[in-house]
């Protein structure tokens, strides 16, 4: 009898001890917390503009895997690039994605975001969301992968259009004509012009 209680006790202890590992946050919860935080920040009228931007940039940096995105965008040109070029590209690409993603979310600050579907397999996940506007629904799907127990976005697919794919082919065209240096110069100019 005592043995049984002890055994149950051990079992319970064991379960309790392991539960934090089981309760590791799923990709949807992690993604949702980021999107909600960004939208909250956008809606927060009390924040000064640069303060708000800083906060959102931090939130985006925390959830996007820009290194992986850069690698996939440059694709075959990635291995041809030098280490400095790679780092430069990651920096510039991250900046340009931050501003476009922020700009798009900003346009839809007051709409609701609905999480429709999620698929997880091993270390990858695809989460489908819909932005519900007054007239239409805009499907935005996120592709995430798990890196050190954290789910990071490595592609955003809006209306079937993958950001990575679109950038990849236009960047490839530029690299073909002007080389990686040419691409970096163009990106730098664009960013300088935009801000």
């Amino acid at each position, binding site marked *: 009898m005592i043995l049984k209680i002890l055994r149950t006790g051990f079992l319970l202890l064991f379960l309790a001890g392991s539960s934090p590992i089981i309760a590791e946050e799923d990709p949807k919860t992690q993604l949702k917390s980021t999107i909600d935080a960004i939208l909250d920040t956008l809606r927060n009228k009390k924040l000064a503009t640069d303060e708000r931007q800083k906060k959102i940039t931090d939130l985006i940096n925390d959830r996007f895997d820009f290194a992986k995105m850069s690698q996939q965008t440059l694709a075959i040109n990635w291995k041809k690039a030098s280490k400095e070029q790679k780092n430069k590209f990651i920096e510039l690409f991250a900046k340009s994605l931050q501003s476009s993603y922020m700009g798009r979310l900003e346009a*839809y600050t007051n709409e609701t975001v609905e999480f429709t579907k999620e698929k997880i*397999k091993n270390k990858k996940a695809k989460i489908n969301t819909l932005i519900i506007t007054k007239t239409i629904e805009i499907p935005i799907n996120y592709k995430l992968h798990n890196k050190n127990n954290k789910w990071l976005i490595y592609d955003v697919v809006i209306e079937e259009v993958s950001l990575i*794919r679109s950038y990849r082919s236009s960047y490839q065209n530029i690299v073909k004509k002007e080389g990686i240096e040419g691409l970096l110069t163009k990106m730098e100019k664009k960013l300088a012009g935009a801000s």
Partner: protein
Amino acid sequence: MNFNRYPPLISLFGLLLCTSLFSAVIQAENNPVDEPTLVENDDDMFDDDFDDDFSDDFDDDFDDAPPPLVIHDPLEPLNRGMFWFNDKLYFYALKPVAKTYRYIPEPIRISLSNFLSNLTTPIRFVNALMQGKVNDAGNEMGRFFINTIVGVGGLFDPARKYVGLRKKEEDFGQTLGVLGIKPGPYLVIPFVGPSNTRDGVGYVVDTLTDPIGIVWQGRDYWAVKVTDTVNQISLDKDTYEAITGDALDPYLFVRDAYMQNRAGKVNK
């Protein structure tokens, strides 16, 4: 707004449309390229089910990443010209008009959009059927009855709001795609925008069978179409500016995005 000024513009547009379509077809015949458009690549692993999908080739080793979307664009110089034209048309004509148009209270603009969209239900219904999407066809039929009767002739969209029936975008270009017809060369059609040979044909067929054309004929039809376009732009949140503003080469970005979007819709 006086639409009597539009007809010359419209016939010009028709002419241009015809020539660009013809030239594309001729081009395609002279030049029977191996399947033109999409080289399916890595990302597709996500689109299907997961069986063997999230394979590791995606993970650490990008060296063998397959080539990106390959688009057949033999008319690129002409297309770039048309893209430039449409871009200017957007920024100097449509957008300013749409901005002024925004003075009309939004609920009215939304109702106009709902009304015209409700009228075009048969296009979506028939195309859904032709693609074998019986559920979507039923969805469109349900929407039509609910919105026509409860939504006051389509001015409101109670089917979406209260029943959760959302509009399914279907057109003849998609139907052709589902039937296995390849997109063919990329085309930029003046006044219309990015397209390809298949979707251009689809656009002509959709226009010829457009129920709005039964209600309004000739000039009136195009007046309604122009109003619809301006109305849509007024409701839109500057998507075009966002896309083209960020891109290093807007032509390439739009071309790629368009082809991906259409391929995605056909495969849906």
